[in-house]
């Protein structure tokens, strides 16, 4: 039987949405494999049993439930050996991780222990005629996509950023739950101690859930214009976002509102970009938006090529007009 596993990322009482996106993708990959297949989730933490229902609804047929109070905070020195041992025992063919703060560390760490390969930050994946996982990964800021295979070692591992794949619809389903015995596990005496997890309270609609995103590039030129984007976003019930230089200039509050290869990947219904040149690093993170509108004073800006509509105009005047129209 072919086994496809997904690492279920449950942190601070929340299941990361990338887990559900990966389960949806895992089901799709399973249909490309011959014979019997099984999609399973690996869930690690403390007091997490109630999450099993959600995992089952999104496609997990089996759930490896690894529960202990010692596992309440993520620690790679505890989590990675658990994963490695489970893999050695059950021998999955494919293992998918979210390319999140945790998954980006845990995936390659377990892979190093297992001496297998990880395709990082996949934007697409399929099963080829040899029943191998073929993952498309971006390089050079997304300018080039390369296919990565892991033909000889198992599992074939891959990481995917949140927002790349679409989450399916939940269905009423039950999963078989396998409780993994970790009664002997302890964080004592480890050279690495997790002290705390602090959550930043984000105001307004989170960027990855916004239906409309107003995005600023270096061309917005000042912090005041960033404020205007935030105002527009607030009135639309959307979110404001930006490119790397806007974070570096200190106009935007931080990387959590940055879209691109090293920031967030978003797919809102509509994206309106101001003063964005069209560097691949940024385009890679917003290309899946429903509607893309760009305003840039340079009519030759590369961003217009990847936009549905654009205006070669002074963004200050367009912003002001939008504010007037919406009475802000």
């Amino acid at each position, binding site marked *: 039987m072919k086994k496809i596993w997904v690492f279920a990322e449950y942190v601070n009482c929340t299941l990361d949405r990338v887990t559900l996106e990966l389960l949806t993708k895992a089901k799709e990959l399973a249909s490309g494999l011959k014979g019997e297949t099984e999609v399973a989730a690996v869930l690690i933490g403390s007091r997490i049993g109630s999450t099993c229902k959600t995992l089952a609804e999104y496609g997990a047929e089996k759930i490896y439930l690894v529960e202990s109070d010692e596992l309440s905070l993520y620690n790679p020195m505890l989590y990675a050996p658990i994963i490695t041992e489970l893999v050695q025992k059950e021998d999955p063919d494919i293992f998918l991780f979210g390319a999140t703060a945790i998954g980006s560390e845990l995936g390659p760490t377990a892979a190093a222990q297992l001496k297998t390969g990880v395709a990082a930050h996949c934007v697409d994946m399929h099963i080829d005629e040899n029943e191998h996982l073929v993952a498309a990964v971006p390089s050079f800021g997304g300018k080039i996509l390369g296919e990565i295979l892991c033909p000889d070692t198992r599992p074939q591992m891959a990481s995917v950023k949140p927002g790349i794949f679409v989450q399916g619809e939940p269905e009423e389903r039950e999963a078989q739950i396998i409780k993994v015995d970790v009664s002997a596990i302890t964080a004592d005496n480890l050279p690495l101690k997790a002290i705390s997890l602090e959550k930043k309270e984000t105001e307004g609609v989170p960027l990855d859930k916004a239906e409309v995103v107003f995005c600023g590039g270096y061309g917005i030129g000042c912090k005041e214009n960033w404020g205007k984007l935030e105002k527009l976003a607030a009135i639309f019930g959307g979110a404001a976002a930006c490119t790397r230089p806007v974070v570096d200039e200190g106009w935007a509050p931080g990387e959590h509102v940055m879209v691109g290869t090293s920031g967030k990947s978003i797919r809102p219904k*509509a994206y309106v970009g101001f003063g964005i040149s069209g560097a691949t690093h940024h385009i890679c993170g917003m290309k899946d938006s429903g509607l893309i509108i760009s305003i840039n004073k340079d009519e030759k800006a590369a961003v217009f090529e990847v936009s549905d509509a654009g205006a070669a105009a002074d963004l200050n005047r367009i912003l002001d007009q939008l504010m007037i129209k919406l009475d802000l």
Partner: protein
Amino acid sequence: MALKIVVCIKPVPDPDYYDKVSIDPVTKRITREGIPTIINPVDKNGIEAALKLKAQYGGKVTVLTMAPPNATENLKEALAMGADEAVLLSDRAFGGADTLATSYTLAKGIEKLEGFDIVFCGTESADGATAQVSSQLGEWLGVPHLWNVFSLENLEERTLRVRTKAENGFMEWEVKLPCLLGVSRELNKPRFISAMGIIKAKNKPITTWGKADLDAEEERLGLAGSPTKAGAIFTPDLKRKGEMLTGSAEEIADAIIEKLRTAGVNIPTKGDACIIEGGARQ
């Protein structure tokens, strides 16, 4: 307490030029001609962190890279920033390495040095951007490792207090030396090189080690040691209609709102704005 610090760096094509990277239609290889090779930007944050610790506690900073021979130029820059010595791991046998083989080779290079207290890496390289080498290097070295470090303090009794980025927040850790830290660009601001730094760098050693110099298993090196294999490469087609809106700023704003409406976005009415101003939107 003198510290032995190793910083792993990677020479990469300058990310400011990635829009010029393309695939040669005949050879099907990536062309990056004319793009200068620089130290991977976030690796400089690793160098800066090492230099700061050395200034505080004393010790030695070694920069290490696995790269073709011309990487000595990048190593010289790291020495000019203030590192004490540089090691270049260079051999045809190292070529075609994925992250597992790369981290193995780096680990073998580090093991040949006279021990270490801290290894710094950047979180990810600008070109490949897998962000995997730092964690995997930590595994090969058998030391605790953390990725995405943005704050580092309180070095006492060989323990560091470290913060790493989490989704919408951060985690705080205590890690004992020896350890490996994958640092992010928020950690510090890398220093510029000075004329004095360049002069001093001339007398600092750059050592080159090949396969024969390392106590390495051949089948773990380069392409042979890489579980991942590269398939086809292609450039994604992201072209859209690119319809240009013209007219006055007011007309363009109207057109934008109309397009948003057609795309299914709820266009706020004036009443919504008042509620926002009042700060109590229900």
